């Protein structure tokens, strides 16, 4: 293969061309799933469990409904396996006799009139034999410790799960026995031993477009199911294909999945579409008509995935000159009722737990516990926001304990180029956290504010503070994950000479269509406007892997670059396309090639640009192909009259390899920071017996435009060999920094260490007026059943 460097004239990569599908969006012409209909389409609804755990004694259909008009689907109707496949098969597509979480799908109904479904769902009466449930990590652990058979809610699996525990990891910075000995010795010799416990709550993705699907089922002449076609909002069409193959016992090429314009996802449409997609397809199969299922907001919030709650425990041996000598970190996440993605979220939490620091010896123990809550799932960051919250709060605690500034402690322990991470990955590509820290603090005016606020706070009931977090985020799938994904990308040249990119990578606002088009345009030396991106339809596009893990720019972008180069090589060799071709010369060469061969297609598969060593058993080696590095600084004002914290300014500095599209990149960081601010201060999930009680926008508090500060975004670029133009992924990075930076700032402002998020005013008040630590009360005292103002529904 001949390689070419990126042409420098009129660079498209690094510019900000108009969003590919932007015009349709601002016109209101973009078609999301609820804007679409198929002829003869019926509507579907889901009958769900009203209890957290138990067995179904009976299901009665009230006589006032004419059930002959309805299509009813039960577990017994599933032609293949009653499972939503992830890494294990514990997650049923429809509950069959037992339920393990509130809102668990039991039956599906379809009818030609959407309004008829309301009464029908209400007319299905389910009688349960309730069993005791567990609803927190601690309750789940206690059941195991006490051998409480009645509260073992998940039996274990052959994929490394044990009673109530989906998955564990044990990660050492070196050989196990050596590291344990090193840890023991370090704790013996340490000047300081610092312990801390940090908690994060669930978080709802709150994409503004609810989940929705339209499904069709096609039968052959003898009436047997031949194929299914599912379209809707989603991140990973091929995940849905895989799910359908099991549910319908059909081969992949008989399960067609099409992603339509998607109104936000953030991970919430990564695995969940397999559930709603299977449901709609089953109804289509049974009623013989296309079926649309659209959730309303209350259903989407109560029934679909959320970010895993977590608990991180640190125990750190530190020298008096501020060197980390050794550490043990215990991470626990709440996975909900079924395993789903918990093992993968746990993996990322584990690997990110040590952060951007040098640990002579470290051990990370991690576990994902089962609870009777709707399964938690992917949400931007995917485990890293949880463990990085614990780490960066703990670093400030260490600093305070030993008498160093937060800044100085970081400086004495940062990883640098050539160092080895906790998993044993040598940092070959340049990393300069010292510089990032210096620059971030400068941009934010950190030192000046520290001094000024300290003075001003003495005379004000509004306490101001600054705090920061230093972190990194691994881009791409862990270890050998990308090789396993074996992503495939096509670039076709169409009849009129315009190139079309065919990938399963989806657009849901983050800019997939735009950046991949930029890469192709830059590489092919063609105008950006000439590049097309095919709609992700699995009957047409290859599997370029899921749109997750901040991998699209770096991994898929690189594949698009290689495919574009392959096209040029082809045309140069066979059509004498000159080295510095014009657009017209390209089109002529392409047409000529097509005339002779029928089509002009480049097809490339993933190849790691360098060797990646990763041991899945020991959890050691090159954890990620690349890392983006960052320091975020938060400035807060805490009003001691109302106990409300406002973020008054935010600075986000990150090194990202290459800024492919400045406007899009800024937008990604700003949006992620906004979600991070919500995660820290506003977005509380209020649970009662495993059910989300504040499942309305009026009661789940997301920051509005009036709540967010000016967010200042700064970039640095140290090109990586992995991505096009040196780009690394940035989609999830901005989720990791805000929460610890904000809580560090609050500690600076108030002198009080808060270690649980979301930190609501009620919690702050309770702590400030309480003698106990942790304080009794705060948002623990919220009464989820009482809502006199909006009267949230409490299902039977």
């Amino acid at each position, binding site marked *: 293969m001949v390689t070419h460097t990126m042409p420098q004239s009129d660079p498209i990569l690094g510019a900000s061309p108009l969003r590919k599908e932007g015009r349709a969006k601002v016109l209101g012409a973009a078609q999301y799933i609820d804007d679409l209909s198929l002829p003869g389409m019926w509507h579907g609804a889901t009958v769900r469990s009203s209890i957290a755990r138990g067995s179904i004694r009976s299901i009665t259909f009230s006589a006032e409904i004419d059930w002959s008009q309805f299509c009813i689907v039960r577990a017994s109707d599933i032609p293949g396996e009653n499972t939503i496949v992830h890494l294990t098969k514990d997650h049923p597509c429809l509950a069959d006799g037992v339920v393990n979480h509130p809102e668990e799908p039991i039956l599906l109904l379809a009818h030609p009139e959407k*309004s*008829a479904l*309301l*009464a029908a769902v209400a007319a299905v009466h389910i009688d349960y034999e309730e069993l005791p449930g567990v609803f927190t990590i601690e309750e789940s652990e206690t059941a195991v410790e006490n051998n409480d058979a009645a509260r073992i809610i998940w039996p274990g699996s052959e994929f490394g799960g044990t009673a109530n525990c989906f998955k564990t990891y044990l990660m050492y910075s070196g050989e196990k026995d050596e590291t344990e000995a090193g840890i023991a010795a370090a704790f013996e010799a340490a000047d300081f031993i610092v312990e801390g416990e940090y908690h994060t709550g669930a978080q709802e993705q709150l994409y503004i477009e609810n989940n929705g699907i339209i499904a069709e089922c096609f039968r052959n002449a003898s009436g047997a199911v031949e194929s299914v076609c599912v379209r809707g909002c989603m991140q990973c069409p091929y995940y849905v294909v895989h799910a359908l193959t099991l549910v319908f016992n059909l081969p992949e090429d008989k399960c067609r999945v099409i992603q339509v314009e998607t109104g936000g996802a953030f991970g919430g449409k990564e695995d969940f579409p397999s559930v709603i997609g299977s449901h709609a397809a089953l109804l289509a199969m049974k009623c013989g008509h296309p079926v649309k299922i659209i959730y*309303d907001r*209350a259903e989407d919030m109560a029934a679909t995935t959320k970010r895993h709650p977590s608990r991180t425990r640190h125990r750190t041996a530190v020298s008096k000159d501020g060197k980390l000598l050794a550490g043990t970190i215990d991470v626990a996440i709440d996975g909900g009722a079924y395993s789903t993605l918990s093992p993968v979220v746990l993996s990322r939490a584990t690997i990110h737990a040590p952060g951007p620091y040098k640990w002579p010896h470290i051990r990370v123990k991690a576990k994902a516990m089962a609870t009777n809550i709707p399964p938690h799932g992917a949400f931007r960051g995917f485990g890293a926001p949880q463990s990085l919250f614990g780490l960066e709060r703990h670093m400030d605690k260490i600093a305070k304990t030993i008498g160093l500034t937060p800044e100085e402690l970081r400086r004495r322990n940062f990883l640098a180029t050539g160092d080895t991470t906790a998993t044993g990955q040598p940092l070959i590509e340049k990393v300069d956290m010292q510089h990032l820290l210096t620059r971030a603090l400068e941009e934010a005016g950190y030192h000046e504010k520290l001094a000024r606020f300290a003075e001003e706070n003495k005379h004000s009931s509004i306490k101001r503070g600054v705090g920061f977090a230093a972190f990194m985020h691994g881009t791409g799938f862990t270890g050998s994950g990308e090789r396993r994904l074996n992503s495939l990308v096509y670039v076709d040249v169409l009849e009129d000479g315009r190139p079309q990119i065919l990938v399963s990578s989806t657009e849901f606002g983050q800019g997939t269509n735009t950046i991949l088009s930029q890469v192709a345009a830059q590489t092919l030396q063609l105008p950006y406007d000439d590049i097309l991106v095919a709609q992700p339809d699995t009957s047409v596009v290859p599997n370029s892997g899921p749109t997750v893990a901040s991998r699209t720019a770096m991994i898929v972008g690189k594949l698009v670059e290689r495919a574009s180069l392959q096209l040029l090589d082809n045309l140069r060799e066979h059509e004498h396309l000159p080295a510095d071709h014009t657009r017209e010369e390209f089109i002529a060469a392409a047409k000529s090639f097509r005339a002779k061969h029928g089509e002009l297609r480049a097809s490339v598969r993933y190849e790691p640009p360098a060797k990646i060593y990763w041991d899945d058993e020991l959890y050691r080696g090159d954890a990620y192909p690349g890392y983006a590095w960052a320091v975020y600084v938060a400035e807060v004002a805490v009003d001691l*009259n*109302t*106990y*409300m914290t*406002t973020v008054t300014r935010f600075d986000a500095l990150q090194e990202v390899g290459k800024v492919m599209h400045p406007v899009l990149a800024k937008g990604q960081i700003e949006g992620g920071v906004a979600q991070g601010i919500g995660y820290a201060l*506003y977005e509380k999930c*209020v649970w009662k017996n495993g059910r989300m*009680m*504040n499942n*309305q926008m*009026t*009661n789940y*508090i997301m*920051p*509005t*435009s*009036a*709540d967010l500060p000016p967010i200042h975004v700064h970039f640095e670029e140290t090109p990586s060999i992995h991505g096009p133009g040196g780009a690394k992924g940035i989609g999830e990075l901005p989720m990791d920094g805000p929460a610890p930076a904000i809580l560090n700032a609050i500690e600076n402002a108030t002198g009080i260490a808060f270690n649980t998020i979301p930190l609501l*005013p*009620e919690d702050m*008040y*309770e702590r400030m*007026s309480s003698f106990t630590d942790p304080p009794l*009360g*705060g*948002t623990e*005292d*919220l*009464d*989820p*059943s*009482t*809502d*006199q*103002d*909006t*009267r*949230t*529904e409490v299902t039977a």
Partner: protein
Amino acid sequence: MRSDVAQFDLSAPATLDAVLTQLAAEPGKHTPLAGGTELMVALNTGRLTQHSLLSIQHLKELRFIRVQPDAIHIGSGATFTNIRNSAEIAADLPLLIESASWTGTIANQNRATLGGNICNASPAADTPPALLAYGASITLISAAGTRTLPYTEFHLSYKKTVLRPDELVHSVSVPRDFSDYRQYIRKVGTRNALAISKIALAALAKLDGDHIADIRMGAASLTDRPLRCSAAEATLLGKSVDAKDMDATVRAGRAALASETHTIDDIRSTAKYRSAVAGNLLEEFLRSLAS
């Protein structure tokens, strides 16, 4: 969308008289619907139990702001935007302007009416605290005539008012002369916009030298209804806000307010927080009188 709209009836009699006639003919059968920012949410979430509705949103007879020498009369159909746009209300009743701007969003302010806000009678409603502090009176109208009463007598208990099934709120009348009063209002919600009150306090005080010559306060979310804080007012009347007396005044005021406070834990906030912050808002107001 959790209601079948085919099962609801909405009609729009052309005049106020026609509406009142219908309410009198079948009292309790029909529910008035103005801007819809409460009842349509109930429809959307499947909680609208009343199936026969009468639209009053179009009635010009109810949508007015009339300024007279001694009072400003605000029709129950005046929207929050109407209130915000009134120069007279801005000049004389700034706390009402502030309340109207807190309510939801511009889109909801364009539709939400004063009458609807009062009749929905949530203890967290945004306009009652200011109306209570200003000493407003409220006029109710039916086919049988009108009756006017002090607004403090309108709310009986949780979402229960004196409104009869055949009555509508016609208007609210607010005295105008508070030019020599210090005015304060603050709402504490879950965020800066689009928030239901956890606690709100509206307060007016006239000083005679260092002493409180008159004080009125209205609060949201302190009890089961909008509260005129009469106990706190009675205690604070005549108290000194001089620097040497302020701490004692604040203590007395806090204690009195606490005595008439019955906050609750709910899905949004806690009783302890609400009570604590209510006291803090009162203190903030009292200390502002010293300057």
